[in-house]
């Protein structure tokens, strides 16, 4: 169903971090941007759709005011808002927001870090744009920071802090079907597998809490009012967001899942794990009748690689990209 295409070489190998691959399509310029985190560097590659041009950029996690600190990066993710695209980088020290091509840093938010390290590590992880003008970023304390993003310029403000989680945030996702009918449009997940379902607005409204089973939910997606969650046990679970009803449970992988992605137009679901497998599934959800179907379509084994990032390259799921720990390339697969 899918076949391997030419790989994209990276300047550095990928670190073992959840959701360690982000993809942004710039349709007017026929370009795709990819980012992969390597320790304290974000590797960025811009590729032309004809596959002829590649350009690389590296971003260091540096606090703008204090030239003396570099810190390990936890995640880099593109956030596509209707008015602008930003690249958000979360690290041990704080949150950086760049123009999507990585050229200019437009905002910096420092985390409260204790002077001497404490038993609990401090970091930001879990990044998602939601609604017209918000970017949410999770923190190791369990807090979720909501930033209000103006349609242009650098006047970004921290508008709200959501404090419902007690464990470190792992991932955040917003409704990606484009449907305005879905009441819930944001889901946040944590290290204990707990999830909170939100409705965004001037004040974010907590709609539901889905309790965890004491195993990390490492990657989460929200599609057609259904929460898709990947866990450390290798399971994928599908919950109705607002009620928390469990619709489906899949014994999907033999090791920790590191990444889930959904192609919103076709309902293809991608799951990737430390077991070196990437699997493609097909989802059919009819909210009106509460019907959920999930079928397995395809396996790809990236031999001897613990996969840490996997993303579709387009909304139909025509192609997807994969990277793994210690791997200095992005492997691409395209539908045959």
């Amino acid at each position, binding site marked *: 169903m899918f076949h391997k295409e030419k790989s994209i070489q990276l300047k550095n190998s990928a670190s073992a971090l959840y959701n360690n691959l982000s993809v942004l399509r710039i349709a007017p310029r026929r370009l795709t941007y990819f980012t992969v985190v390597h320790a304290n560097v974000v590797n960025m590659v811009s590729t032309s759709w004809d596959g002829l041009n590649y350009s690389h950029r590296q971003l260091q996690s540096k606090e703008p005011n204090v030239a003396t600190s570099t810190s390990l990066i936890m995640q880099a993710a593109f956030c596509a808002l209707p008015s602008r695209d930003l690249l958000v980088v979360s690290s041990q020290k704080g949150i950086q927001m760049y123009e999507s091509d990585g050229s200019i840093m437009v905002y910096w938010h420092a985390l409260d870090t204790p002077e001497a390290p404490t038993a609990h590590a401090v970091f930001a992880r879990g990044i998602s744009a939601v609604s017209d003008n918000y970017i949410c970023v999770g923190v190791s304390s369990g807090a979720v920071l909501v930033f209000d993003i103006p349609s242009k310029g650098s006047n970004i403000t921290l508008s709200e802090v959501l404090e419902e989680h007690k464990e470190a945030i*792992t991932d955040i996702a917003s409704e990606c079907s484009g449907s305005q009918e879905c009441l819930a449009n944001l889901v946040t997940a944590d*290290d204990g597998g707990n999830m909170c379902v939100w409705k965004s607005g001037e004040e974010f409204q907590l709609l539901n809490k889905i309790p965890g089973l004491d195993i*990390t939910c490492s990657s989460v997606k929200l599609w057609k009012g259904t929460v898709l969650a990947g866990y450390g046990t290798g399971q994928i679970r599908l919950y109705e967001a607002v009620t928390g009803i469990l619709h489906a449970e899949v014994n999907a992988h033999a090791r920790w899942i590191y990444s889930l992605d959904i192609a919103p137009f076709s309902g293809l679901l991608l799951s990737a794990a430390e077991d070196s497998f990437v699997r493609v599934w097909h989802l059919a959800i009819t909210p009106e009748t509460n019907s959920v179907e999930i079928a397995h379509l395809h396996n790809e084994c990236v031999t001897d690689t613990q996969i840490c990032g996997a993303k579709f390259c387009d909304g139909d799921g025509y192609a997807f990209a994969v990277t793994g720990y210690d791997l200095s390339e992005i492997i691409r697969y395209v539908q045959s």
Partner: protein
Amino acid sequence: MSTRTLPLLFINLGGEMLYILDQRLRAQNIPADKAKKVSTVPAWIEEDRKRVMNDIITTMFNKKFLEELFKPQELYSKKALRTVFDRLAHASIMRLNQASMDKLYDLMTMAFKYQVLLCPRPKDILLVSFNHMDAIKDFVKDTPSILSQVDETYQQLIEMYTPLSNGEFQLIRQTLLIFFQDMHIRVSIFLKDKVQNSNGRFVLPTNGPVPRGTQIPGLIRIFSCSGEELTRLQFNNGGNYSSALREGSFEMFGNRITKLGTNMYSVSRPVETHMSGTSKSSAQHTKVNSAPNPLAKEELNLLARLMGGLEVQKPGSTDTGFRVNLFATDEEEEEALISRPNELSYGVISIQATKDQQANAELTKIMGEFTESGDPSSSASSKGDDLLAMMDGL
């Protein structure tokens, strides 16, 4: 990332070091007349082997040293940690030259990288550590004073780590994987066992038991709104998995179930390395390492504090100092030193302990506490000066 990583890194690397040294010391434990013919390395007697093992383990589990180690902190750079192990390897009468030390460190790090990468669940890193601790206890089982020192650390490990959540263990594991990132040194014992490929990457099996708490992939279940199971679908998982093994013991005693972290060397399976990292990734490796680290000074102060707890014997006079060779012959060792790719060489870092007031005060304090239980072979009064001089001479 995780501030709880350093104790596990130190204990597991230390455990691997002890396995290798024990194997080499036993291998060189041959009658003196025979030894003269094949090597200039003087023969070891069983008593020397025990002394070296005891000295290193005593140093490793020094109370003051471990107190510093167990404080929450970020990991050191590769160079700083290498310096700690250089000192530790020379905590007894045994001497290793540069090539042998490089080889020892490569073997230790690749062995632990393998264990971290392969451990079925992040939490199993603790079982790997317990396998090392069990073996260390066995090394000193005839010396009650050292044994109780090791037991104390064992207790501390259990208290600190068993309450941690899966997510926290995964963060520790991810921190360790960043530390070992881009290291692809080929190790002959792994190549022979077919667990490492010729490009230096480890083999990840897609068969065998799944981790505890994980089901064999292949089942989809759909539920109704009331929670009834509506359908069950099977799919091909592309591997050949079996059900999970039983849980290993997270107590001081018991079967750890996992073999990761146990001693893989024996006299019939000697220590060897192929010193060829894949060229591309070694270059990257250096690039990361040579990036200026603005935290270096802070780190060196921490290191100086740590090293303050590391008791090191003065190099013995020629008749008491024993040299251990990690290679089959002396010629091979010399050749390895010359042919070692530059990017794989570990630079030596210099700590100006005497010049740093704060570190100096701290060191003096530690050494003050040190003299009480001081090494009888060196006089208590000169001990402090020796240690400071040693720091400067690193």
